[in-house]
């Protein structure tokens, strides 16, 4: 196995953020995190992630704005797929996210950790 795949987790809830970090680290991925919109934007702008897990409701700047900024200012190094993390069901927001370049979404409350892992692996495979 060469370079571990890099995943950026953007999630404001500390427990959930650390949970995803723990879950995915155990799988051997290199994890980076951001707890608010502005940190997330600068990290995405630096680029080089294989996958970005992006929460929508965030302090300072919400997920939709992050996606818009990403579109307006392409990152220095290219990023892989963006998967939107959401608690809201199939709302109109998800449709907007797809229009802004997201590849898919995960409803956090609907999945058990093993299901989350399966989804993430699928997105990474599809993006590779």
């Amino acid at each position, binding site marked *: 196995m060469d370079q571990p795949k890099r995943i950026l987790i953007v999630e404001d809830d500390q427990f959930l953020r650390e949970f995803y970090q723990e879950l995915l680290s155990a799988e051997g991925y290199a994890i980076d995190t951001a707890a608010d919109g502005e940190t997330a934007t600068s990290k995405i702008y630096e680029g080089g992630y294989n996958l970005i897990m992006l929460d929508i409701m965030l302090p300072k700047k919400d997920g939709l704005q992050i996606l818009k900024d990403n579109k307006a200012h392409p990152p220095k190094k290219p990023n892989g797929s963006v998967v939107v993390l959401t*608690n809201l*069901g199939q709302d109109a927001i998800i449709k907007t996210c797809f229009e802004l370049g997201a590849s898919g979404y995960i409803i956090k409350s609907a999945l*058990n950790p093993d299901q989350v892992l399966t989804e993430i692996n699928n997105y990474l495979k599809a993006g590779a």
Partner: protein
Amino acid sequence: MLQSFDLISGLLILTFLANIFLAFFIHYRSSKTPANITFELVIYSIAFWVTAMFFYRLTSLQYSELFARLLYFAASFTAPSFFLFGLFFPRERPNKFLIGITIFCTFFISILCLIPGLIIKDVSIVPGSEKIINFGKAYPFYIVFISGFFTAFYVTLLFKFFKYRNINNLIKVQIQYILIITSIVSVLAMLTNLVLPTLGIFVVNWLGQVLTTFWVGGIAYVIVKHRFIEIRFVVARAIAYIFLLLAIGGIYSILLFLVSSSLFKIAFTQEQIIFYSVITFLVAISFGPLKRMTERATDKYLFKGYYSSEEVLKVLSTIIGSNLDLNRLIFDVLNRVLIELRISKGAIILFEQNNIYHISQIGYDNKVFYKENLNIMLSKTNTVFIEDLEEGDMKQLMRSLNISLFRVLEVKNELVGLLLLGEKSSGEVYSDQDLKVIDILAPEAAVAIQNAKSYDKIKRFNITLTEEVQKATSELQIANTKLQELDRLKDDFVSIASHELRTPMTAIRSYVWMALHKSDVPLSEKLTRYLNRTLISTERLINLVNDMLNISRIESGRIEVLPTAFNMQTLVQDVLAEVEAKAREKALILEVMPTQLPQAFADPDKVHQVLLNLIGNAMKFTPQNGKITISFFSDGNTIETSVKDSGVGITQEDLSRLFKKFGRLDNSYVAAATSGGTGLGLFICKSLIELMGGKIWAKSPGLNLGAVFTFSLPVANERTLAEAAKYTKKVKEGEVKLLEPVNI
């Protein structure tokens, strides 16, 4: 030399009578519209013209020139009166300037006609033929005048014909007839009486007048056939009047001649006989109007006291019977009494619980209406007349207030008002007739005033009521707006709260799962059981929040229904693919009975949700190795989809509660508890199916014998597709919500 009385003279008399008959006909119709009055004017002018011709033909050379001038004078009124009629017909307000011009021109030309030598120079008699007129220098004015006004008349009527063509068919037809009849007759008459005489031909100079008989006949036809002028009782009255005229005229003419010839031995020439006969007729005609005129004049200037009690009471009864408006009623009654009985001043004061409620007065000062003055009078019940009183306080009071007579108005001993009357305009004493009329009138007026007062009160009450209703309505509207706002706030709150709830719930769920599956120490059996129950409860909590959100959205009308035609069996296969993994865990057999089916007409997303719910339920309540069968049935109008399981079943009494909110059954609690059910799924299914115009029901042979859940939806046939709007439910842009997914 004198032209003899011949056939033409007879014809002229007939024409005159025909015109006069028509004039009375119209004069006695009920309404006096300007169009009718001007039309009457037309006929009078024609009758005048006919009469003038009659005399012109019969007079000797000596007077011929004078009568020729009179003939043209008479003729000058015909054309402008036609034009005036054309302006006013059917109910229009013509330009005042036009009317002024017409009157001025007519006045000018008619004066010209009368001045010797201007239009008529002289007349020469040709024996055995019509007289010949030599025209003067001003004759061309006359030609222009007559032909000009007739042309203006045609143009006006033509203009109105086009104006009313598409608005009022009756008026259109009337104009059509009047135009045709008048134009034929007037063109012919102008030919015989204007064009030919100008060229020096006078043989048929009389024909124009006689032709007007046809005109009268034609107009009479339009009156009868096309309601040109409403008839009513006119015919009988007109005929009676004509007979009266003939009788009076005839009797007096005959008397005149008999008396003259037998008593005074006077022989009359034919000319004189005709002349006197016509004058007797004129006397007969003018007697009626003259009598009315002189009566009116003497009444006005000499305060003549006579009137007909019956007439006065009839007029007053009409006023009383046709008026419900209190102010109008009182004023009209008072005004009429003063006019008819010729009284200088008067007042009617209305009382309500012995307080002045309303005063209507003509000619009195306000000091009359002081309450202490009036109270003294209210004690009397009969008509009190100042002349009948002994000297005393009452007489003193009445004299000081200029009251000659008063009468209390009551209904069934209840005070309504007080009628005060001043002295008579003539200064005379009230007659017995006056007092009698007041005695008859007073009770009748009292009842009418009482009624009008009640009506007035109801009217006022109605106004207050309307105001109250308006106030209440606007308050309700405000309340409604507030409620809508609250509803929106509630929805927002539920939405945000459930979102906020789910973040910690997701954390609990995830960490408990990790504790169960990724623990770095082995778990005891007890700890595993505890953690398992925590996990299931958390999942139930999440599902509960989802279901509550869904119900809130359905109930607040935020869920759209967008029906399309789709294949139900394909949709079922999709749902089965989703639940396959879960079914395998419990080793359940999922079976579909393939059936030949028409397409369904519903919102596939919502049906998907329902199927997921029903199949999910079946799986929850069916033990290991059980079987779930999905079957279909269609009668061509609806498609029924049934989900049958071999699970725990439902008792009869529980069947009715199934589709209610939190209708989960007590005895299946264990199954529900271990499966994460919420008790809201079937309620959501029912709401969704009903939104799509379908039905849902459940059957079970009993406990542990399984259950069948069936829902029906419309088939996509011509009828449902045509009524697509009935099955569609649109939601305002920005308010649309989707359903939270079902967890199985």
